Structure formats: C-alpha cells, structure tokens
C-alpha cells in the first residue's frame, strides 16, 4: 500500500487530506508541522510526502530541504500545497527539491488526481 505523509498546520485540511486519501486506499499519516513531519519521516519510510508551505516550527520549504538530505528521501516525491497567488513559493519549493505542487484551494478530486500521478 502506498504510504503518504501529510503535513499541514490546519486540522481541517489534515482531516480532509487523510479522509480522502484513506478512502482511496492509501496509508496516510499526518503531522501538524514540518518539525513533526521530519521526525515521523525518520521513523519509517513513506512513498510520498505532501506538505503545506506555511507552518510553524519548520515550514514546507525547510521540510523539503531536510527530507532531501535524508538517504531514504532523495527520490521520494514531495508535493507542496501552495496558493496560486504565490508563484514565488512554487519556485522556492522547487529550489528546495520539491517534486511538484497542489494549488490551494483544492478539492478531494484534485488531490487524488495529483497523488495518483506521482505514486
């Protein structure tokens, strides 16, 4: 089963992501900020990471950089959640090593479609 680590500081987005992906048969674990996600990522290997950009403690850009430095996550797809209004975030995310992005606001369909693309 494809395992996904999702980091977002917003509980509603986390719940939505988790519910949507679990309903589609993915194994999903959530973290409420980048630092927690990084800690979780070190305890087991995930097949895909989805991360919000704006988060306390460690933001999505920092998380992406840190994950890419881990041996197990060199090639793991990392998707960042970003808004259309911040194209520079996309560039920043890419620069940090992100695979791609999901544009907020997104709905469960978009999420599943994007996840199915990279899994």
């Amino acid at each position: 089963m494809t395992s996904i680590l999702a980091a977002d500081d917003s509980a509603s987005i986390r719940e939505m992501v988790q519910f949507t992906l679990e309903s589609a048969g993915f194994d999903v674990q959530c973290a409420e900020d980048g630092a927690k996600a990084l800690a979780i990522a070190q305890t087991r290997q995930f097949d895909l990471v989805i991360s919000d950009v704006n988060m306390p403690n460690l933001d999505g850009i920092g998380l992406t950089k840190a994950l890419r430095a881990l041996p197990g996550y060199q090639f793991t797809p990392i998707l960042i959640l970003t808004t259309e209004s911040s194209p520079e975030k996309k560039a920043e995310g890419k620069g940090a090593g992100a695979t791609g992005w999901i544009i907020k606001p997104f709905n469960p369909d978009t999420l599943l479609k994007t996840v199915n693309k990279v899994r």
Partner: protein
Amino acid sequence: MELDMDRFRQIFLQECAENLEVLEAELLALEAGLADDDSINKVFRAAHSIKGGAGTFGLSEMSRFTHHLETLLDELRSGQRQSTPALVALMLKATDVIAQMRSDAEAGGNGSSPNAEDISQQLQAALGKGEAALPDTAVATTATTEGADWQLEFVPHADMLASGNDPVRLLRELAELGMQVKQCNFGRLYDADYDPQLCYLSWSLTGPGDIDESEILEIFDWVEGECDVNLSRQTTASPAPVLTDAEPLAVTAAVSSAQPQPVASEPPKAAAPARSAPEQSIRIDIRKIDQLINLVGELVITQSMLASLEGTDGEDTQERLARGLSLLKSNTKALQESVLGIRMLPISFAFNRFPRLVRDISQQLGKDVTLKMVGEHTELDKTVLERIGDPLVHMVRNALDHGIEMPDARRNNGKDAGGTLTLSACHEGGNVVIDIEDDGAGLDKQKLWNKAVEKDLAITRDRRIDEFSDAQIYDLIFAPGFSTAAAVSDLSGRGVGMDVVKRNISDLGGSVEITSKLGKGTRFRIRLPLTMAILDGQLVAVGEELFVIPLINIVESLKLDTDCLIKAGGGVVFYQLRQQTLPVVWLSELLGTRGEPGPIPLLCVVEAAGRKLGLVVDALLAQQQVVIKSLEQNFRRLPGISGATILGDGQVCLILDVPGLVARRMAQGGKADAVTAA
C-alpha cells in the same frame, strides 16, 4: 467523487474560530507594542490558513476577503510596510468581518458579512491599489496550426530524479493524452562515469494534432528547468520510427506503466450529507483519551477477576470478593474522573475575548487600562464555561465603566494614570475561583446605601446603614433595580443588571463575593463548581426521608443544644453558636416530611453567599458523590431543591439548594439577620 465536505467544513469553522483568536490576540499585541518577532508570522499564518481553508471548503467570499488581509500581512511580514495604529485597527475590523462570515457559515449561510464590502475596499485602499480578486486559475490556451500531428522531444536533465520526478510518470501522463513514444534515446547511458542516481535517457513522442497544446505543456509544469522540452507541429507525415534493438523494451515499459490503474481510484462514496444543525463538538487532548482507554482496560481486568469468583465457595472467596470490589470502586472513581475530565476545558476559552473587549471599551471611555490575565489554563466544565462567559463580560464592563477612574482623576489621587484590570482563575478545593480585580476607585459604602434608599429597595426599608456589614452593603449591587452609574451609560446600562449576573452564577451552583477598599480598588470573587454533573454530598435523614446537602456548603455539624435556641418574634428561631447567632430552620417543617423526628436533633451549619444558616436534621448518614439529575427537565423547579439523585439502593433522593434556602430564610428573617454576616 462525492465526499461529505460538510464534516470538514465543521472542523474548518472551529479551526477558523481559533485562528481568529490568534489574529485578534496578536494584532492587539502588535498594537500594544508587545509583539515579538514571531507575532507577525503567527498572524500571517492564521490569515493564510483561514484563506486556504475557506477556499477549500466552499466559502469563496471569505477566501477573497481574507486574501486582501493576507496580502497586507505579507507586506508587513516582509518589511515592505510598517505597522501603524490605523493599519492595525483596520486589520482588527477585518478580523471582525471574518468572524461575522464564520458565524454566517456556521448558521448555514454562505459565509457573508454586511460589512465585507466596506472593509474590503478599505483594505484594498491600504494596499495602495484596487487589487483584483484571486488570480484566475484558468490557463490561457494558444491556438496554433490546426490539424498537424504533434512532435515532442523530451530530454530530462541528468538530475531530474533528484526532485522526485520520474520520467516514467510524465510518459504515462503523455500517453493518457494520446502521445506515443516513438523513440527512446540511450546515447548518454554509455558515459564513462555512469551514476545510477542520474537520468541518462531521453524520448521522442508523437501524438494526434487535436490535443490541446496547453494540456501537453501542463504535464511539464513541475519539471520546468529540469528538462528540455521541444514541442512542434509536424506538417509532413511522421517518419517511420527508428528503433534500435533495445528500444521496444523501453517503449513497452513506458506504455505498460501508462495503463490507468483502476485500483483504489474509486473511493467509496460518502453518504449524502443531511443538512442539519451544526454538531456540538469538543476537542480533547489525546492523552485524556489514552487515559480513558487504560482505565477501561483496568475495569475489564477487575470484572474478569470478579467473574472468576462466581460459583466458588472457598474460604478466601469473601476476602477476594472484597478485594475485587474495592478495586472496582477505585476503577470506577478514576473512570468517572477521567470521563468528567473530557468535558473540562481551560478557562482561556472564556478569557480570550477580553483583550479585545477591554481595549475597545477603554478606548471608548477614554481610559487607559491594562488587562492582566492569570491562570488561563485552569480547567472547568464546558457547560459552566459556556454559561460563565456572559456574566464575566458584564462584570468586566462594569469594572471598566464604574471601577477604573479617568486618567485625570487617577493622577489627582496620586495613582498611575493607567488602571489595571486583573482576571485570574485557579482551583481551590473542588471549586474554580475567578477573580475580577481592578485598582480603581473602590466602592463607596455611603453612596451605595444612599442609592439603595433612593431606589427604595425592600432590604433597606426601616433599616440603618450601621445594621449592615460591609459585605452586605456591597451586595446591594446585586439587588434587582440597583445601578450605581449616575447616568445610565452606553456600556453598563444595557438592561442586564448585576442581579442577573448573580442569578446566573447561582444557577451554576456558584457564588460571588465582593471586597473593596475605597480609593484602592474592588475585587469580585466568583466561586464555581468544577462540574455540574456530580457533587460531593452529605446524606441526611429528616423523619423517614433522606436528603443530600452539598458538602461544599456545610461548615460544621453538631448536636443541637436546646439551651442555645433563641426564640424571636414571629416564630423566628436563632441559635447561639459560640459568638455567632445563626438563624435556624427545621427541615422537617420546611419540607413537610413524613415520620417522627429522631431522638437527638442535629444542627448542620451551612453557608452560602457569605451567610450562614442552621439546618435541623435527625441524622447524618454517609458522605458520597452523587450524580445530579435535573428536576426541571424531568419534573419542574421546586423551591429549596436544586436537583435529585439516585442512591445505591435505587431510592430517589432530593438535593437541597442551600443558596436558595439561605436567601429564602433571609427574606423572612426580620431584623436579626444582620448578626450573621460571615
């Protein structure tokens, strides 16, 4: 897919409320110059979360509105703009608009606010330009030469894999559009220093000309700068693909992985959401849940231990049974405490509104007031918490309006021009104690008295001020029809008097007491029970019947010495207890109980609202925790009774309403009441 977005929307609305609190608190900190480096980041994140969530959960108006606020905050955060009081005030107003939108959404609306347009324009004006709403997400399509087939060269850079982008994925997506791999180029694979972590392959593809160009280019959205893509129209028929020996393998690999994978792409459909009132929900610390699960585990073990005794009649059965029961008792108690703990929330939920309230009111009044909050983590029952909010607001308004003086008056009295209002909460015994303390003018007893006389309050008729204790004079504030303001002001004179505040607190089983020093300040101390579901009670017998007296109200119990009884006129009886004279009530008379009185009458001294009363009962029985059942919900309100409970043997037993009894006795009590001030 259909998904019940409503359930996430509820979570979002709750989260939105929390984010609004952060927004407000941090903006206030910003205004007061107390903001730290992280404040602006927190505010930005809160606005950003609200915007993102609102957009995701279908509240587009809220999302658009918050976008302007977020843009402004982003400029502040990046240092492009400096914070000014006017800007912060505007952002606070914007926060209010979002709160209105949130309430509207919660009530089933589409999340709109009547003030949105106005504030939105002000925000845009502050941004210096009439900024358009969120950029359109539609991608522009460019029509080129129609008809001709597409030819695509796709050359990943060697390090493309390092961003997690697999060329196979891109080929798969291209195949879904109808693009076919014509050739795979292995040329670079034979480099001398081959590194397995790099990508050496490149591909040529063709596809029918009716595919939208933007659709093809969109696939490469994520890998811009990580590969070379050359898309062109073929005017002539496509050349026959040139395949090397190894190529078909690669093509097959790419194509086979291009097969859509139906597994799990059809998630189970969620049931259609029924439109209904918003659910009441509560957020619980996960540790509390873990604790509950542990306790249930213990309970199961105890149960199986007791079950194993069934049918045994060994010598030690009795002893093991007793041990099991004692274990069961402690398990049950722990479980009960944990379950009640679920309903416990920190008082910050009630306190959080005050920074803004105090700021707004003190500005309105032209006063300079600093709010201090202590013990915000003190927990109390959710119901109590919800119902104490309004009385607290009223008391805080009162303290700001009547308590704290104008800056000039304060200076003239040798005080700091700025006043301080302190809200504090702590646990004391089985109670929560909330203090609302100001360093204002204090209560003027003579003025209060004159006012009460002028208003012709019943309690002052035919009485003199020196018959009353300080506490009793302060308590005049709580008498119906009393108001200390010379003119009914906009703030305090809103029709709700302090009598209502006091009644609300009494209804919660709590009490409020005032201490004050003229010229120094006033303190309102509210005592509330931790929970309204369970109380520690003293079981007493009156004739043949049993009653529960809340343990919290009992000061002491003693044998009734008939020599100490003092009969006053009108059948009123007092008891001389050491230096105090207490009014006494025979519960058997008051409640009209059946059965003969016991041989040795006992006096149970109870206290409420600073006044003591002696209750004559026939026997004191066990002290135990009782679960309170509402009489009002199941029967009707009875004077002197606060509720009912069911005892271990199934008997229904009434719980005495001590504050009610005390108040009632005071009302009939005649003159000598004054003797018993605590």
